[in-house]
């Protein structure tokens, strides 16, 4: 008979106050990306027709810039007698609006950086003097985004764990099942921890081992 692997201390989801959640609790509603214009869901486009126009020409039929220019001219001509104008002058303006679309809730930013360490005597290497572009985004927001992905519901280890197979032999499968993660979060009881969760388990020769698990839990983290 094959016994399933035994997972020790798999962890349980909790809320921001550290209270355990009942099983199958749905996640909090998504906060959505921070919109520059909260009243315009089509931002950076001014309206749905502008978005549809760009989507049709750029995504669906993938028109050339020349054909987009002609379509924009026709748009402008059709509304000119009513005093209107097309939202873009030419295709390059339309491309700029498309580039301004914000994907996800963690925008990319470009930083100008240069070497700030000690320089060797004499003429320093060229790369120490030059300025470079570092393109990066808020890594914490990216982590939140990843952790809040609903598809990971059953594919995530919210606490370090230990796994033994049917023969009682320790097995390793994921990062959180290994000693490194365990050592980071599991300590013998110590008063210096802020939030603690005491777990008792029967040890050998009738002793009871008491472990303290410290949850490094940012107050605004989401389960």
């Amino acid at each position, binding site marked *: 008979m094959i016994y399933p692997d035994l997972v020790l201390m798999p962890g349980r989801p909790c809320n921001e106050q550290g209270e355990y959640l009942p099983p199958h609790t749905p996640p909090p509603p998504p906060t959505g990306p921070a919109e520059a214009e909260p009243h315009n869901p089509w931002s950076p486009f001014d309206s749905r027709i502008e978005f549809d126009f760009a989507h049709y020409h750029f995504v669906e039929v993938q028109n050339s810039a020349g054909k987009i220019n002609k379509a924009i001219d026709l748009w402008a001509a059709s509304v000119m007698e009513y005093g209107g104008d097309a939202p873009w002058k030419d295709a390059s303006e339309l491309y700029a609006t498309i580039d301004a679309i914000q994907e996800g809730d963690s925008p990319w930013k470009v*930083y100008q*950086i240069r*070497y*700030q*360490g000690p320089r060797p005597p004499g003429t320093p*290497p*060229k*790369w120490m003097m*030059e300025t*470079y*572009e*570092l*393109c*990066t*985004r*808020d*890594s*914490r*927001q*990216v*982590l939140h*985004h*990843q*952790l809040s*992905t609903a*598809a*990971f519901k059953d*594919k*995530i*280890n*919210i*606490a*370090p764990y230990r796994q033994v197979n049917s023969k009682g032999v320790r097995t390793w*499968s*994921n*990062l*959180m099942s290994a000693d*490194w*993660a365990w050592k*980071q*979060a599991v300590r013998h009881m110590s008063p210096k921890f802020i939030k603690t969760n005491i777990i008792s388990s029967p040890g050998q020769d009738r002793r009871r081992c008491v472990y303290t698990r*410290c*949850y*490094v*839990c*940012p107050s605004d*983290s989401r*389960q």
Partner: protein
Amino acid sequence: MFVPVIAGSDKTTVSVATGHQEYHPVYMSPGNLTNIARRAHGNALLPVAFLPIPKSTPYATSSLHELMYFYSNKEASENCKLPKILSPNVPFVPCPRLSAT
């Protein structure tokens, strides 16, 4: 929740048409995800940065320590020398230990 961060870069260079710049992409993944999820789902491993490559100085890019120093952000991390890319996580990593292998 204890969230280990797995981050890495590879030798794939991203060529950008404007300026003929080349970058090393940096990816990040929460260590909490199972290995299967990390390999299967697009959200599991996301790019967080594109590192510029100083031209004609292979040694400048080869050393991880140098890169760490290169990207360190004094205001965010003071003495810690945490890379700027990870600086949003500074409040939760009060005393980072960097090691190069």
